[in-house]
């Protein structure tokens, strides 16, 4: 059975049907792309999948459990982590703390334990530090763990956001335009990183992207969205040759 099974997902803002009867089925370990012109409803779908918006209609089955309409934090606990189109890091926190804050549901201790510095505090902090540094090492960020997140170069901020999302131990990772604002070299590096993440963490990844080189380079399956509706769906190479997709999105 597919890891993520979405059926008839819809949401309307006033009279605008931003997402209308959206279906998708993603197998475990797949690298899935979601493309479409500006305003097609791609980010809205991400917001629906992560509980930022509540859908008017439809079901979202993650690993056999319907997560539609649940709160963002519960959806995260159920196993969906995301990054944002405009990077949303905790800017005034260090790189290490950015990852540690995402680890605290796994290595849990109470506020009182923290205030009184009970032995559990030191045990959990040590575990958190080790795990966070391990993750940062994967993204080659361990050298900069003590600097403020806002002082990282752009490309590394993107990587840190992915590391932070992975720290919550998700079953599925949603990347919202990971290559936005990157130069071709950085994009190439990002493609390697995404592939690497998929292989090392055995992760299922759904990504929104405008960079066709990245999409055709790494996505195995593709869904094209236009005006909130699915225009085409299937294998990347086939979908990109679809004449409807070419007129709506790629241009002749």
């Amino acid at each position, binding site marked *: 059975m597919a890891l993520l099974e979405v059926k008839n997902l819809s949401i309307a803002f006033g009279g605008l049907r931003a997402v209308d009867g959206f279906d998708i089925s993603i197998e475990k370990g797949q690298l899935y792309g979601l493309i479409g012109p500006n305003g097609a409803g791609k980010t809205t779908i991400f917001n629906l999948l*992560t509980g*930022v918006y509540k859908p008017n209609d439809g079901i979202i089955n993650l690993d056999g459990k319907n997560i539609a309409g649940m709160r*963002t*934090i519960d959806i*995260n*606990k159920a196993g969906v*982590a*995301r990054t*944002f189109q405009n990077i*949303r*890091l*905790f*800017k*005034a*926190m260090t790189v290490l*703390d950015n990852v*540690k*804050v*995402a680890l*605290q*549901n796994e*290595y*849990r*201790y109470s*506020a009182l*334990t*923290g*205030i*009184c*510095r009970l032995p559990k*505090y030191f045990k*959990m*902090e040590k575990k*958190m530090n080790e795990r966070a540094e391990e993750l940062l090492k994967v993204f080659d960020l361990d050298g900069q763990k*003590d600097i403020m997140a806002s002082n990282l170069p752009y490309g590394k901020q993107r990587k840190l956001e992915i590391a*932070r*999302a992975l*720290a*919550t131990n998700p079953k599925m990772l949603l990347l919202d335009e990971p290559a936005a604002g990157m130069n071709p070299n950085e994009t190439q590096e990002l493609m390697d990183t995404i592939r690497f993440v998929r292989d090392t963490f055995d992760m299922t990844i759904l990504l929104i992207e405008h960079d066709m080189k990245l999409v055709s380079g790494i996505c195995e399956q593709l869904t094209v969205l236009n005006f909130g509706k699915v225009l085409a769906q299937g294998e990347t190479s086939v979908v990109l040759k679809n004449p409807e997709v070419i007129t709506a999105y790629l241009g002749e």
Partner: protein
Amino acid sequence: MKKKIGMNKSTYNNMITLGIVVAAYIIIQILISTGSVSSLMEGLLVPLCVYVILAISLNLTVGILGELSLGHAGFMCVGAFASAFFSRLTEDLITATYLRFLIALIIGAVCAAIFGIIIAVPVLRLKGDYLAITTLAFGEIIKNVVNVMYVGKDSTGIHFSMKNAMDLNLKEGGDVIIKGAQGITGTPTDSNFTIGIILVLVTMIVVMNIIKSSTGRAITSIRDNRIAAESIGINITKYKVITFAISAAFAGVAGVLYSHNLSTLTATPKNFGYNMSILILVFVVLGGMGNIRGSMIAAIVLTLIPEYLRFMQDYRMLHKRKGAE
């Protein structure tokens, strides 16, 4: 040297802040024993501790959580009245001063924390200016309710009224403890500078430890980016309530210290009104958001300056006149 003892920069900074407090305490004690501190200054020592505790505790809400709360004096008021009421009630029952003060302290802190939670729950949906206005109103409500509260005790128990002292119907030998606008008189003056400094240190250590724990990271993450914090499973409601409760509890502690320094406690606009809340906010802003040492220094400087400039008080009118014309 820092590397050798295995401390990072913030721990080292915190140690310095605590060191400054201890050093200041020792120096002041030496000056007092040699008689070189004026009685005016000596009288200011406990209020200074009160202000420092207030500034540090508000910093948790404003600096770390990033929410503008203007009801801090209200929480202080709750702590002051709850604890002074307890101390007056048990003055003859518990004769050990420190034990009575310790219980009063816990009662003040817990009552203020409960009010913090009561206020946090409805204002959680608000942000920025709206939150500021609502907390400001809550602070004023607390002060005004205290001003019309009459509580007395007699042989049959504790009586409560919102009208006047006669309405309590006390039996012969009864005692009115909270007398409306006249407040509480005859509170045992159990607090002193040493207790004040200990409470300052406790406040500092608790706030510092929170900041450097998972609770503090969660609170900071909410300030930096609420949506991202939610996306990684941070329960925003829970952490906002925790922050409000802890912040209010320490405002309550400051209130306990304040009320047990004076034998007469009244709720006036000057001590528990919004002017006070704004003054505390000024300490926090001047000292730097999230900066504990800064809050402490700002509280001390802004309390001492008016005292030292008292000789110029008359000239203040000149400037006021000019403004009026």
